[in-house]
């Protein structure tokens, strides 16, 4: 039983990332009708915003510390981060420690602006073109973004540790009445799961309970009628593209401590997230979230040794296998609506 719960927990963090990316993909698809192959790249940019903020916070100058001596008896030169200099040592160190969560403040406006520019500058011209063209141009964009990141940050993964307060593990087993250490779960993954639940809930709340969200939902259902009612639906859809980019960016920032960012993670996640979207049902937001968590957890179950002993290699292919089965038995995915992508 404890092994069972452990696998569910293990699947949650990956599932959260899938769900967040798939949510953004579905938002873009549902509103603009564009299949965005560059969404994984946006996730990757988010992760690299965390890297950049961490680097910026550690920017330092050399200062001569009179109180310390090196082994020759000369005053020691120490690196003094600017943050420590400006805000005092305690605040500066706290900011460096918390650089990943603090990056969220930077990533939201940055990714929103980036999404906005992308939509106005590039995607806008592809509404009338076939889906294949949209896939191709965003695929090219994803290559370009990935290579740009590689040119600036190199090809190696860059460590971005979480705040030291979240470094350890939580003993979930004790809380549920099992033996101590039966289910130890890294704290940051728990934080990631909670964070993604908050983001998903706020996106849903935004769509459900605000007037803006209501108009957007109306536009998703029938774009023309909303336009005829005198609402500039394009503007709102552009906003939704920015929002989807920001969601992907936040997912990326918070994922950086779990998986050290490198220029290819976007593509790795994108392929799986597309599978997630298709399994959930093209254009269905709850479907995307549900499928994201479901596939994350399934993947973690498939990597159990007991399962692998029966079906060797199943952990590598389970997601694709599920996708194939779902697509053949339920063509519209788990919760897909009628008439989406069926022309």
């Amino acid at each position, binding site marked *: 039983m404890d092994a069972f719960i452990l696998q569910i927990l293990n699947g949650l963090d990956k599932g959260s990332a899938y769900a967040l990316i798939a949510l953004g993909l579905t938002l873009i698809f549902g509103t603009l009708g564009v299949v965005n192959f560059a969404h994984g790249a946006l996730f990757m940019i988010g992760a690299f915003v965390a890297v950049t903020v961490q680097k910026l916070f550690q920017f330092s100058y050399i200062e001569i510390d009179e109180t310390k001596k090196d082994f020759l008896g000369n005053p020691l030169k120490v690196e003094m981060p600017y943050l420590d200099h400006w805000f005092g040592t305690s605040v500066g160190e706290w900011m460096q420690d918390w650089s990943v969560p603090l990056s969220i403040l930077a990533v939201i406006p940055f990714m929103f602006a980036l999404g906005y520019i992308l939509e106005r500058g*590039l995607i806008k011209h592809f509404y009338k073109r076939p889906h*294949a*063209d949209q896939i*191709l141009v965003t695929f090219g*964009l994803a290559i370009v973004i990935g*290579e740009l990141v590689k040119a600036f940050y190199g090809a190696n993964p860059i460590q971005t540790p979480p705040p030291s307060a979240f470094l350890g593990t939580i003993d979930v087993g004790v809380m549920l009445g099992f033996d101590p250490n039966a289910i130890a779960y890294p704290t940051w993954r728990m934080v990631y799961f909670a964070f993604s639940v908050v983001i998903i809930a706020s996106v849903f709340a935004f769509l459900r309970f605000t007037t803006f969200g209501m108009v957007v939902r109306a536009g998703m259902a029938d774009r023309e009628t909303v336009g005829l009612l005198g609402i500039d639906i394009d503007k709102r859809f552009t906003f939704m593209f920015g929002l989807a980019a920001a969601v992907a960016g936040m997912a990326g920032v918070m994922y950086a401590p779990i998986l050290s960012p490198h220029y290819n993670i976007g593509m790795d996640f994108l392929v799986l997230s597309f599978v997630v979207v298709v399994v959930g049902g093209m254009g269905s937001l709850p479907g995307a979230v549900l499928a994201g968590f479901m596939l994350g957890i399934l993947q973690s179950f498939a990597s159990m040794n007991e399962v692998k002993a029966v079906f060797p290699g199943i952990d590598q292919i389970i997601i694709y296998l599920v996708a194939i089965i779902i697509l*053949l038995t339920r063509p519209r995915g788990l919760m897909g609506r009628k008439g989406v992508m069926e022309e």
Partner: protein
Amino acid sequence: MLGLNSRDFKLFVIVCIMALAAPIILNPFPTGSALGQSFNAGYPALLQRFVIFGILAIGFNILFGLTGYLSFGHAAFLGIGSYSAVWMFKLLSYNVLPAILLSVIMAGIFSVVIGYISLRRSGIYFSILTLAFAQMSYQLAYSVLTPLTNGETGLQVYNGDPQVLMSAGDPTIPHLFGITMNGQSQLDIAGWSFTFQNGYYLAAIFLIASFYLSIRIFRSPMGLMLRAIKSNQTRMSYVGLNTKPYMLAAFVISGMYAGLAGGLLAAMDPLTGAERMFWTASGEIVVMSILGGVGTLIGPVLGAGLIKYLENIVSKINDNVLHGWFSFMPDWMDNLFVTIIHPFIGKGWHLTLGLLFMAVVIFLPGGLVQGGQKIMGKFSRNKTSDAKDGADTPAE
């Protein structure tokens, strides 16, 4: 001639000449000169890649160009072809004929299965299904199927392999009835030196045959049917036509082309790994076809050639070469230009490729062929009907 109309026949002859004379045509600069070092492409290793990826792109075009079904998992067949060919080397002998035969057959069998399942959906669902199958093959080749694929080491021929048809005098490299693939003859004229390699010519003959077959398919009733499916599949069903067999046939033919390319790759270099099936490889096939001009006969071959050529050239350029080019400028300008261009060359080749690809998709959906037609149209205004004639096969 040969069952082709005069226009197609002209195109076919041009392709034949290009393929057979490529070692000469692609060596325009003297071998020793600086330009020759940088821009000549007429050496066997690169020429082989031109024709093999050309075959791959021709096959992909039969599926995507005619039916509009975008397969994102075509590299799987390439990998299957390569693995089958190397297995033939291991089991029978280094003769390439059975190897290539088996690679085509195996790719055909796999494409029947994958195609039968994937073609039950269309549009993006089809793309995702093919992608899923290709990724599955890739992952399995790396993990469970290691006895068959030799995992990360890559499949190759070892001394202990049976090679039952191998007799004492046979060469221990891939050969066709004794003619070794890497055997070559050299021709030196003044500063030029041309290399004619057996392996290249084998691949070139396959390219010519594939190209001929693809023209025949494009002009056949079946080709027409496939194009009708592309323009409106629903209507085809309404008039009482079962589109499935046609689609499956196109998919299998295209998969067999990929298998042939994979077999040839293994024939040139009897070593293969799972990375040939990775989805970036599939992406590359798509990029080649789009760049050249999908749905046109010659486009994919041009695209494959151009990408492999640029990949080779651009990866070779480094900062020193650039400084050499800009040496006539003042120093600060030279350095500025080199700094700007630096990310795009050498290891940054994929960045250049991505930008080029985006530019083509945005501005020239019909690829290079459409670009060529536009330029031709500018020169001959009175012949606009000709340009329109070519414009009825745009990319979709």
